[in-house]
């Protein structure tokens, strides 16, 4: 009987493990492998090049630019939705009129795929009839035709705005859940002790929201690392690589320029960064646990 169960369990585990193995583990190790070759992506004729690909990274101006953009992208993609989400959650929690309607509206974008969000914002930024330029024209009375996504100075930030628009809802609901978890009597103590709303938020609410914040920031980081699709749809890394991130750069090197070996080396670097972030995240989680339990 017990043995039957074990067999059954193993049988049930094989399909998901197989999928995970083929789609995650295998590519992971192959990219480790290809990162030390000069494979072009299809030819059977390639050889071992040692750490050349990694050394090349240091001489690749596009890599540096993509790395800088990735830092900007990640910082903004974490800070903006986290900040906006927190403000919205606090407003909704303070029972402003229509709070529950706003809650649904702000949450809605998270249900859309990044491709759809990207396309919506491509239209919003459209130079001739896009919502943004139309609105600017109306307000200033001028005739705005700014190509937000086609100018190196604004492309990355335009995508960050679109990304934040989508991610804010997620941060907001997590903060709302965190706010609900704060015991009502702690807030009542604030009323009795005469805390202003600013003091209440700074000295009590925010510290008690720390567990929620850790989750929001971690999700933000992880999502922003994955945030390739929206860039791909909106700018494809352009113009002139101005909105390239490491993921975008890796994609371009591997699949557009057929430098699969070099692309793999970039992906290994990305992997290590992700790993470091995840470790930092778990350490932070443990610290939070130490305070609240």
């Amino acid at each position: 009987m017990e043995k039957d169960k074990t067999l059954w369990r193993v049988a049930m585990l094989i399909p998901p493990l197989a999928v995970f193995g083929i789609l995650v583990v295998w590519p992971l190790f192959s990219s480790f492998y290809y990162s030390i070759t000069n494979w072009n992506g299809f030819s059977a004729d390639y050889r071992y090049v040692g750490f050349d690909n990694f050394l090349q990274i240091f001489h690749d101006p596009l890599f540096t630019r993509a790395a800088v953009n990735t830092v900007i992208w990640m910082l903004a993609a974490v800070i903006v939705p986290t900040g906006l989400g927190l403000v919205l959650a606090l407003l909704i929690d303070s029972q402003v009129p229509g709070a529950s309607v706003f809650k649904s509206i702000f949450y809605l974008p998270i249900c859309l795929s990044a491709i759809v969000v990207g396309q919506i914002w491509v239209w919003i930024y459209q130079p001739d009839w896009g919502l943004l330029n139309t609105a600017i024209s109306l307000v200033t009375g001028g005739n705005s035709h700014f190509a937000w996504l086609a100018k190196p100075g604004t492309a990355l930030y335009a995508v960050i705005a679109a990304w934040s628009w989508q991610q804010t809802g997620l941060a907001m609901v997590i903060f709302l859940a965190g706010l609900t978890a704060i015991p009502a009597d702690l807030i009542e103590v604030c009323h009795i002790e005469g805390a202003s709303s600013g003091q209440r938020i700074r000295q009590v609410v925010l510290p008690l929201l720390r567990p929620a914040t850790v989750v929001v920031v971690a999700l933000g980081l992880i999502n922003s690392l994955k945030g390739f699709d929206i860039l791909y749809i909106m700018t494809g890394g352009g113009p002139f690589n101005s909105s390239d991130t490491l993921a975008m750069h890796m994609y371009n090197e591997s699949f557009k320029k057929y430098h699969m070996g070099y692309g793999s080396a970039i992906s290994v670097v990305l992997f290590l960064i992700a790993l470091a972030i995840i470790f930092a995240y778990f350490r932070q989680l443990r610290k939070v646990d130490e305070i609240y339990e």
Partner: protein
Amino acid sequence: MSTLTLKNIRKSFGDVHIIKGIELDIQSGEFVVFVGPSGCGKSTLLRMISGLETTSSGIISIRDRDVTHVPPARRGIAMVFQSYALFPHMSVADNITFGLRLAHAGKDEITKKLAEVADILQLTPLLDRRPKQLSGGQRQRVAIGRAIIRNPDVFLFDEPLSNLDAALRVQMRLEIASLHQRLKATMIYVTHDQVEAMTLADRIVVLNEGRIEQVGAPIDLYEHPANRFVAQFIGSPKMNFLAAKIDVVEGRQMAVADGMAMQLSDEVPAQPGEDITVGIRPESLAIGGEGRQICQARIAVVERLGSETIAYAGVDGQEELLSIKLPANPQVRPGDLVPVTMIGQRVHVFGRDGISIRSQI
């Protein structure tokens, strides 16, 4: 001088009336306990006094100042919650001085007051700890410390000891009593534990369904309950109630029922044949002995508590078992048919409406 006055206080949540007109005057330095069954509105009333709950109508004054619509922080109250309500991310010291720090009090003042309060509550060695690192009793002392440091006109306690185990509860009860003597502060204390009520209170307010049933010193409520509700609520085990009728035998007023006759030592204003309820405390009853016999009863259950024993006995014609408080280790067993006698003459007579006709001693 009265510290707190409630004038016809009412509260409803939507259509539901929870507090239905409370009149109360609390003197300076008094320890007043609100008791009543669960859901009767004790916490709601306390929270209305604190200002955490709005008041639907009526006037609340503290030190002759109308505070009905004043926010909690400016009423001159401090509140201690059942859950302690300590901030988990702050040290004991920071929890206690929270209000002072909010008000930007001077560093020296904070240090001095903190030292005083910590000394009173024996918290000095614990000031750097987080609430999580404290026992339940210590946590509640911190919560009390946070109240004391405010130096309020009125302390409000909502079941502060309910989360503690029995032994600690007794210890904390004593600490609160001595704190009251030391601070001579006005305190309002909500509990459903009638031992806490009896031991701590200068006056007890018995609440039922949003109304005051009776207000009085603990011993007054025990000896002269105004009605059946108060009579059964104060005292443990609760008072026995026997259905009976008034009769006059040889010119003397008696309470009679099947197989039972009790002489009433004083006349009560009731006509022969009138239905009444006789209330007798378990401690006024005995088995056999020298008292006057009132009936025969069959023992159903015997609870031996060590220092005393409670016997529950069935009487023909009465619905409820009679509880009888006996000395430590009496020779009674379930199934015994025993004579129940009265020691003393403490009989309470209640009319059909449950109001005390007159309590007798």
